[in-house]
């Protein structure tokens, strides 16, 4: 199946490791990925894990990618099959010409049914049983041991692995030695029994300088701290929990007064998501930057409060790390399935500002933008990341910080202004941008106003009067229009060649789309690309749509939610939009996109394409 001969694929292949969760394979996989990264080779790592603590199948995919395609390609070149339960399926997944590594302590005749791949047996359990004591240690070391086998087969630098272990176990030097021993066992065995390295292997590059390996939740939690958020409230839910954990651990380090030990933040584990968002609103109403992180089920629960925040105009930042729905769905699998609910969450005419980060780097910057936007616009801002971005380590450019940055606290009247006022009215559109002025409690009695989710006039008084009600809700429309110009602009990449075909995507589909565009270009198929980064859609989105004859809308949900939003919120004719929908719970792959585009747009008959190239 591979169109490219293996020997040409140095620094360009995919390793997949099949294990059982709770057996310590995560540290082995991270170690491998980081060792490749430290060798200057771009790398992608994705963890496919079950919603379970111990005992179910789990996979880790490492893509070594000299061209920095940090997305799933859709193929597997080397499978490390450590899980007896999934051997058969795992073996079938290897591409022709690929390799299958297994623990040969026990015979696995089922593995030898394929002629087109190379099977490599290493007696991992035996090696570890002979060298380590204790059942748990042996299991853990068996997983570290395959990292050693791969180090030999792929020509990874053992010194780098030791260095990484020394950093991880800085406080437990004994663990460095035992892990290194396991690595060496695997390494030596592979060296002695197989021709190392394989034709598919790593060769040091210098393409990772100025980059980090970080997951989106960590980056977003970091962003929340840098943005000056002081109140974080949440109810635990996969895959958002690590965002709050990250915020807390950064704050524990950087926000505790060294003299007094007092904490310059409040971190509140709420009783449920209803309370979490209530806490956020109470804090924001009272002038603190406040946020929550959740996933789909939490968004459903928070919806009543979203409507209040929209109508009473209270800032709030909500990170929705999307997972597979509906209902509990598949909590540890990824999707972009909350685009619709977040845009319109709550009853009545409500609309919310949404941001769609594509990677951890954007999670960091969008976290900061979200707090500024929420306070500028006095409304909830949803940051829609997903499990793939949130929980996987992504290679991205170094995060940068400008020390001159100041938060945009929006239109909050300071005391000097308040005392000059005859009387303060909360919901007047003084500046013609739909955004009113607000005041904070505790400043001056003249600044007091009454916040309510019931009908109110532009003066803040209760009303059931048609005109008074409409004045306020019509202004909210103007405010939303102002938001169009404030949310991050789309990233547009024109094909450079004349084409009237476009692609629109959002969020974590970006990497796969870019790789697909490269592949398609090689086949003479060109497309202009727009990545949406904010809702409401900016003018640029309208313009792009108008310029294309045909637009593929690529997204990771069943119901074409992004396409629906585009048809609802832009003047585009529906018939122009073609959906490419990926909703298996796995991150979208470039091959899926290539195949989908080719099904509609014929390649130029310049070069023949083998049909097997795009599985």
């Amino acid at each position, binding site marked *: 199946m591979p169109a490219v001969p293996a020997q040409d694929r140095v620094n360009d292949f995919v390793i997949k490791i099949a294990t059982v969760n709770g057996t310590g394979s995560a540290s082995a996989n991270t170690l491998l990925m980081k060792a490749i990264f430290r060798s200057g080779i771009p790398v992608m790592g994705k963890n496919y894990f079950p919603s379970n603590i111990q005992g179910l199948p789990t996979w880790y995919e490492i893509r070594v990618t000299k061209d920095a395609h940090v997305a799933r390609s859709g193929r597997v070149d080397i499978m490390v099959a450590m899980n007896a339960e999934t051997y058969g399926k795992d073996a079938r997944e290897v591409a022709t010409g690929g390799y299958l590594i297994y623990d040969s302590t026990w015979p696995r005749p089922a593995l030898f049914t394929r002629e087109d791949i190379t099977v490599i047996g290493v007696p991992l359990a035996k090696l570890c049983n002979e060298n380590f004591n204790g059942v748990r240690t042996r299991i853990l070391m068996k997983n570290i041991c395959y990292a050693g086998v791969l180090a030999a087969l792929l020509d990874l630098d053992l010194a780098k692995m030791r260095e990484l272990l020394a950093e991880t176990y800085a406080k437990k030097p004994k663990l460095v030695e035992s892990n290194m021993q396991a690595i060496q066992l695997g390494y030596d065995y592979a060296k002695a029994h197989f021709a190392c390295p394989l034709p598919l292997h790593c060769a040091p590059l210098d393409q990772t300088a100025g980059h980090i390996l970080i997951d989106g939740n960590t980056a977003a939690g970091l962003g929340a701290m840098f943005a000056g958020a002081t109140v974080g409230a949440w109810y635990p839910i996969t895959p958002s929990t690590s965002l709050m954990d990250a915020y807390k651990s950064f704050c524990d380090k950087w926000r505790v007064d060294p003299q007094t030990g*007092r904490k*310059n933040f409040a971190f509140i584990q709420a009783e449920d998501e209803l309370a979490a968002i209530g806490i956020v609103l109470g*804090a924001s109403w009272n002038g*603190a930057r406040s946020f929550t992180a959740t996933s789909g089920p939490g968004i459903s629960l928070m919806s009543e409060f979203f409507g209040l925040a929209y109508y009473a105009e209270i800032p709030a930042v909500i990170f929705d790390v999307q997972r597979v729905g509906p209902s509990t769905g598949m909590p540890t699998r990824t999707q972009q399935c909350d685009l619709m609910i977040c845009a319109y969450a709550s009853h009545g005419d409500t609309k919310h500002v949404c941001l769609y980060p594509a990677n951890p780097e954007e999670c960091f910057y969008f976290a900061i933008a979200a707090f500024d936007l929420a306070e500028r616009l006095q409304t909830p801002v949803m940051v829609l990341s997903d499990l793939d971005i949130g929980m996987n380590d992504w290679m991205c450019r170094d995060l*940068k*910080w400008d020390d001159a940055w100041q938060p945009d606290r929006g239109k909050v009247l300071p005391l000097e202004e308040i005392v000059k006022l005859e009387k303060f009215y909360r919901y007047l559109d003084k500046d013609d941008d739909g955004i009113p002025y607000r005041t904070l409690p*505790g400043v001056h*009695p003249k600044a007091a106003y009454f916040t309510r989710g019931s009908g109110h006039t532009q003066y803040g008084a209760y009303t059931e009067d048609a005109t008074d009600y409409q004045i306020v809700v019509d202004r909210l429309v103007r405010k939303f229009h102002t938001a169009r110009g404030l949310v991050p602009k789309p990233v547009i990449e024109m094909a450079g060649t004349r084409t009237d075909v476009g692609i629109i995507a959002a969020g974590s589909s970006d990497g796969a789309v870019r790789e697909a565009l490269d592949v398609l270009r090689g086949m003479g198929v060109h497309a202009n690309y727009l990545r949406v980064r904010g809702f409401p859609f900016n003018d640029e989105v309208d313009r792009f749509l108008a310029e294309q004859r045909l637009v593929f809308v690529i997204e990771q949900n069943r119901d074409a939610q992004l396409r629906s939003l585009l048809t609802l919120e832009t003047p585009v004719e529906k018939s122009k939009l073609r959906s490419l929908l990926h909703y298996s719970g796995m991150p979208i792959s470039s091959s899926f996109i290539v195949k989908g585009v080719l099904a509609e747009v014929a390649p130029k008959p310049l070069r023949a394409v083998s049909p097997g190239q795009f599985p």
Partner: protein
Amino acid sequence: MTFIPKPKVRHPSLPRNALGLTRRDYEGVLSTLCAGCGHDSITAALTEAIWGLSLEPQNIAKLSGIGCSSKTTAYFVSGAHGFNSVHGRMPSIAMGASAANRNLAYVGVSGDGDTLSIGLGQFCHAIRRNLNMLYVIENNGVYGLTKGQFSASADIGSRAKKGEENQQPPIDPVLLAMSLGASFVARSFSGDKAQLVPLLQAGLRHRGFALIDVLSPCVTFNDHEGSTKSYAYTREHYEPAVNADFVPFEREIVADYAEGETHPVVMHDGSRILLRKFAKDYDPTDRVAASGYIQERLRQGEYLTGLLYIDETQREFHEVNGTPDAPLNGLHLPALSPGSMGLEKILSRYR
């Protein structure tokens, strides 16, 4: 409703508090509740209590959920910010507001429906966190605003206006709060201003969660014969157990009380509550014994009232959290952000 501004005529003879403000300065907009509604009396008592404590209007935040009772936050202290949130969720708003600024006085007003049905979870968790606020339940045994359905505080055998009898046991907020570890628990009656005002004042000064369950008859839907939350029934079955006089710190020196009859409780700010017990064996500092006694009286159909439990030693949310004395909402960027140097350090872990 239309907003009818009341002329603010300053009458020279109106008494002034320590800030030089009259009771008028602590009023809100005109109530739109039914004439005779118990909730309006509680509003009056709150106004009196806050005026009496000389709190700066802007240093108060008034929070509520949804219901006739929850509307009342608009009817007192118009110089304070008010927040009429969503049904049953006021405790979370209060939690967030308090997290942002620990130095305001938070006055929460809720109903028995708002607190004991839809908002029961948040109510319990506010108690668990010992959130520093005054939490008033205006308890009428019905959902007033949705026209008289039984609430979770309706007693077994109590009759609705149309005659239907309640069959389910009530949730008693006082007993519930005691069992959850609340640090200040009181019960009163909207018709007993003399008892209610000092209780509200003590609750405002209490550092932690101060619950006052105030029986507050709904004249429109629950004031008939057969109701156990009517004016008549409440007056008859209302049993003060402990009288609590609130003596603010500033007045302490001149207070004169006879030793022996009274049991003073010293509060965090130096104020005192002078407890006078009507029930001889009642001890409002013994959680277990007090709960037993309240339960016993409830079984007899008597609502024990007064300051039923107090513990001034419990740590409130901010003490547990370790937040600084200055409000979080006033912190500036240097105290919040590690800056570019900090970021560089942080990123070294991800290389």
